[in-house]
């Protein structure tokens, strides 16, 4: 085995792997120390430098230490890509969960479950991302708008339909309902909610005249 390891081509492979996986630049000593006895680190480093010259990834020497980095002329390709992963805030995820299980829900319903007032931006974000939609107005004083989830929501969570949302039994099975839950804790079945109980969006009290414009087709 050691014969193979003194093989320059093999040593080059090792140096390549070390440089790639290192959390920062490595010195000649760092590399030599980690190579098997008898391997020529210096020569291997130069071999790696030659191999990568002109490629998309190059060997760079900084303050006497070595590292692999993307070629400087490709910086344009990289800078554009500094995008944050779309991560939902805790508040947004919690709001989404309540809408999913309790839909159709009003803003007040959500606030009641969460115990804090709902930041306007949270709901807007969920609407803008396409996970939440308006579902109609509730037949109750003030005719509040209700919210529900969209098909995109189902897609995101790989659900065939709302009936596939995990219920209380699964929450229990997943160990989430061990403590602090009152007797009679129930998870509503979102499929039971029927839009038939809701008024159409244009029926709101707070925009009565304006709404008429949109009903157009139904008017004689």
């Amino acid at each position, binding site marked *: 085995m050691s014969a193979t390891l003194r093989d320059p081509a093999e040593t080059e492979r090792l140096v390549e792997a070390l440089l790639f996986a290192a*959390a920062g630049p490595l010195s000649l000593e760092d590399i030599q120390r980690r190579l098997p006895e008898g391997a020529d680190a210096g020569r291997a480093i130069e071999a790696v430098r030659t191999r990568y010259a002109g490629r998309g990834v190059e060997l760079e020497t900084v303050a006497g230490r070595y590292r692999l980095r993307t070629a400087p002329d490709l910086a344009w390709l990289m800078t554009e890509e500094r995008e944050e992963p779309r991560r939902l805030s805790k508040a947004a995820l919690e709001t989404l969960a309540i809408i999913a299980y309790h839909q159709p829900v009003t803003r007040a319903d959500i606030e009641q479950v*969460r115990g804090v007032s709902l930041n306007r931006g949270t709901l807007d974000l969920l609407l803008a991302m396409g996970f939440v939609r308006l579902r109609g107005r509730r037949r109750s004083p003030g005719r509040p708008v209700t919210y529900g989830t969209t098909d995109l929501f189902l897609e995101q969570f790989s659900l065939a339909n709302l009936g596939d949302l995990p219920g209380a039994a699964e929450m229990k099975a997943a160990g989430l309902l061990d403590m602090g839950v009152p007797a009679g804790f129930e*998870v509503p079945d979102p499929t039971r909610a029927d839009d038939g109980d809701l008024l159409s969006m244009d029926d709101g009290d707070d925009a009565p005249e304006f709404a008429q414009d949109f009903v157009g087709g139904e008017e004689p």
Partner: protein
Amino acid sequence: MSGDLFQSSLEFEAAEGAAEAGESLVVDIDGYEGPLHVLLALARTQKVDLLKLSITRLAEQYLAFVMEARNRRFSLAADYLVMAAWLAYLKSRLLLPKPERPAEKGMEPEEMAAALAFRLMKLEAMRKAVDQMRALPQLRRDVFTRGDPEAQVVIPSREIEASLYDLMVAYVSQRQKEAQRQYTPMAVEAYPLDDARERMREMLPRLKAWTALGGVAPQGHPAGGPSRASFVASTLSASLELVKDGMLEAKQLDAFEEIYVRAREIGFPLELTP
């Protein structure tokens, strides 16, 4: 499926050796997940294709295993005993001559034996799969992606990073917080005045000397019932009624001071001092 690739675990070898030794079966019961795992270990000692397994022999081995475990006072979980009963039943059906006409319902013993062999093969396949999965190159154990975290600027994900599990966790935590916020005032149980009156009347003969009202009123019970304050309040009300009836005297040296009561000698008229 040959057993060659199957990597014997230590417990497995223990059972294997034990089974070959016949009577002197020594097993570490804790090493097994359940009866099926024991059966698989025993079956492997027959060194045949699991489909050609002698179920009767396997049943005997298993029954010996259970017997031995019980002799050694291992407490066997119920499913081990259920399996033993089932195997004993299967063995008897396999050994009995076939009835003239087939049973009207239920499976033929051969089918049951085949089903058992299948389950053992399946479990063995999964255990083999575990070993093979362990041998796969694993991230951060065998293979490594680029190490420099700051240089990783291309972010692949375009979807949001949230799973159904995250959604469930978010929902449950909200509902739990909601439950904690709900305040249900406990119905206050009061010490009935009638009870206090009756009790004071009974106590009168013992109240020859001035006695602090606090000592006269019943103590509250930590397990429930009326509070100490309610006991004191009702006892005071009852005492004042007795004072009015001329059966008790009460005095208080100053506002908020302790109130003292004592039984009044019968016949003394009530003196109303201004």
